[in-house]
């Protein structure tokens, strides 16, 4: 009995070992494929996405609507120049005073984003004395934790990375546009030349090399605050921003759990 048990045990160990040996090349191939994927997204070869977690915050009160971020994004990522393709853009919100006799506390809301705010904003046609308040809201991919675009992509060309970014593999995208329809924030577009889906990558080729996204880099008022939550110094602006502000996300009722956090937005912002 003992001999049989021992034989069975050894046979089990042997087959287990052989199984591991067989699985090893498969695991290595899978690891290489994943590494290639990140490299194709612009990351350097030694970049380990599990050791980072990127976060973007927007301080709406600081944005002056200069559009430098939009321009920088277009140049850095070769975004098509036409006025209907943006990885990031800036919206201007003007909330009017309530008309005389109205019971509401706020009047009509006007939103515009001429050419995505790329060239700044022209003077508004709304008379100054009628404006209750106005502010600018920079927009970009909301880096949803439960991203509807990744869920919708039929081939997995859009995917969530372990470091909190949502990327598109242009070599794999079939150009069906389902992800574009699924994005509640209008952050995606079909590239007119490559015919694949495009979106903000947080300048993945830059952040994986220790740089900041182009829009953050050029923002003159530091309205965009960016950092790596896994490697955040004690006095980092991002830590300070989250500690001192009440932060909100866009369209929270959709359950997408955006990782772009906004401070000081009004209820009108969608």
């Amino acid at each position: 009995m003992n001999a049989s048990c021992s034989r069975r045990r050894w046979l089990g160990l042997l087959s287990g070992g052989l199984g591991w040996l067989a699985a090893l090349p498969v695991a290595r191939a899978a690891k290489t494929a994943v590494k290639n994927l990140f490299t194709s997204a612009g990351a350097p070869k030694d970049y380990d996405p599990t050791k980072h977690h990127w976060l973007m915050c927007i301080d709406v009160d600081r944005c002056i609507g200069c559009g430098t971020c939009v321009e920088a994004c277009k140049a850095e990522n070769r975004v098509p120049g036409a006025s209907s393709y943006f990885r990031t853009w800036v919206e201007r919100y003007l909330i009017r005073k309530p008309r005389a006799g109205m019971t509401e506390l706020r009047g009509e809301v006007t939103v515009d984003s001429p050419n995505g705010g790329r060239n700044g904003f022209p003077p508004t046609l709304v008379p100054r004395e009628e404006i209750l308040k106005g502010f600018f809201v920079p927009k970009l991919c909301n880096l949803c934790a439960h991203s509807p675009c990744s869920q919708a992509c039929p081939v997995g060309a859009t995917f969530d990375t372990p470091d909190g970014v949502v990327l598109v593999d242009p070599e794999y995208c079939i150009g069906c546009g389902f992800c574009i329809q699924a994005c509640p924030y209008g952050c995606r577009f079909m590239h007119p030349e490559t015919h694949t889906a495009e979106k903000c990558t947080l300048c993945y080729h830059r952040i994986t090399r220790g740089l900041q996204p182009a829009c953050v880099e050029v923002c003159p008022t530091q309205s965009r605050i960016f950092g790596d939550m896994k490697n955040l110094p004690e006095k980092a602006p991002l830590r300070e921003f989250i500690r001192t502000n009440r932060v909100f996300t866009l369209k929270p009722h959709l359950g997408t759990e955006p990782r772009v956090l906004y401070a000081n937005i009004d209820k009108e912002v969608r």
Partner: protein
Amino acid sequence: MEPLLLLAQLGADAGAHGPRVEGYAYPNEQNVLWSVLIVIYPYITGLVAGAFIMASLVRVFNVKELTPVYRLALLTALAFLLCAPLPLLLHLGHPERCLEVMMTPQLASPMAMFGFVYAWYIMAVLLLELWLDYRHDFVRWGQEEPGLRGLFYRMLTLGVKDVSPKALHFDERMSVAVTVIGIPSAFLLHGYVGFIFGSIKANPWWGNVLMPVIFIFSAIVSGIALCVFIYSELSWYRRREADDACLDEMGKFLFYALLVDFSIEALDWLHRLYFADESIHVLKQLAAGKLFNTMLVGQLFMGTLIPLLMLGAAQLFKEEIPNFLRRRIYYFSALLILAGVLLMRWNVVIGGQLFSKSLRGFTTFKLELAGQEGWLIGLALLVMPFLILILFIRLFLPRKHDTSPPAAEATPAAAA
């Protein structure tokens, strides 16, 4: 400046400035992404599912009156199913990568299921049912027909040439089993198309649990209407007497299916209006403005209410209305319904992209004449299934096997 040059300049300016936006739309939303091809895709799959449900009425629910259209309905379903993937394929930015949807599907995506649902429906349901139903005839025609045609039928028997009563009984039982599987499959096929839209929570016009149900019932309605249309046309073309009992039965089912479809869509609107979430203002503006002609006039009035009245009258006053008039009622109702369901697909697909997800504005859509997503391609895709169906009818419903009596007006006695 020369007038022509001026016009060209104006056109170039219009192109450069893109579509006209009213209110505010996110910049990336200005161009409508899914165009006429994605309108046609659910239309065609709906016709497939509806035609199959129509055929199943004979096989499973034993509605004997519909026997004359049983095979025609199945062949119609097949002809349209063969064309169903085309609009999707043509619409892709990279059609050469289309097989990735089946090779490496992302299983959380409803669109990834298309290949599997399609393959299941065509291979496990439609072709199998047609083969089981036709096998006996294929064996017989293979012996009777000379030359290539005979060879073609012999090949279609797949070598199974046993036509003993026992074998035919087995075919019959299997066919019923396949149809029983086919009914939920047809619901799956088109419910799935509805789910593609219904699952998009980003878009309040689409993201709706009733969407798959609405799609299924509109599919049934359009499928029956298509069978009425094709059966009437075929009878006319062959100068044969259309079976009035069959047309009456189709008219009855068409009426009740349309009534259910109308009720569910009305329920959808009632629910939206009562629920009144943040999107309701923009959706009301959409329905009353951009979609006024296609939805309220086309889909609701012309495509639903008028056919309901006509078909309802034919049900209520069946004895009083003479046969020739009832035939025309069914025919024109079917045409109106077919147009109405096409407009319904338009309203869903295009309507859902005309308003911004910011819920603050609208964009415009202009259908091109030529190009990848133009009128011409759309028209070609709608005509193609009919051409395939003509071929199928010639091969599998040949005139010499048509046992229906000649049309009364075509006989010399009637003329005299």
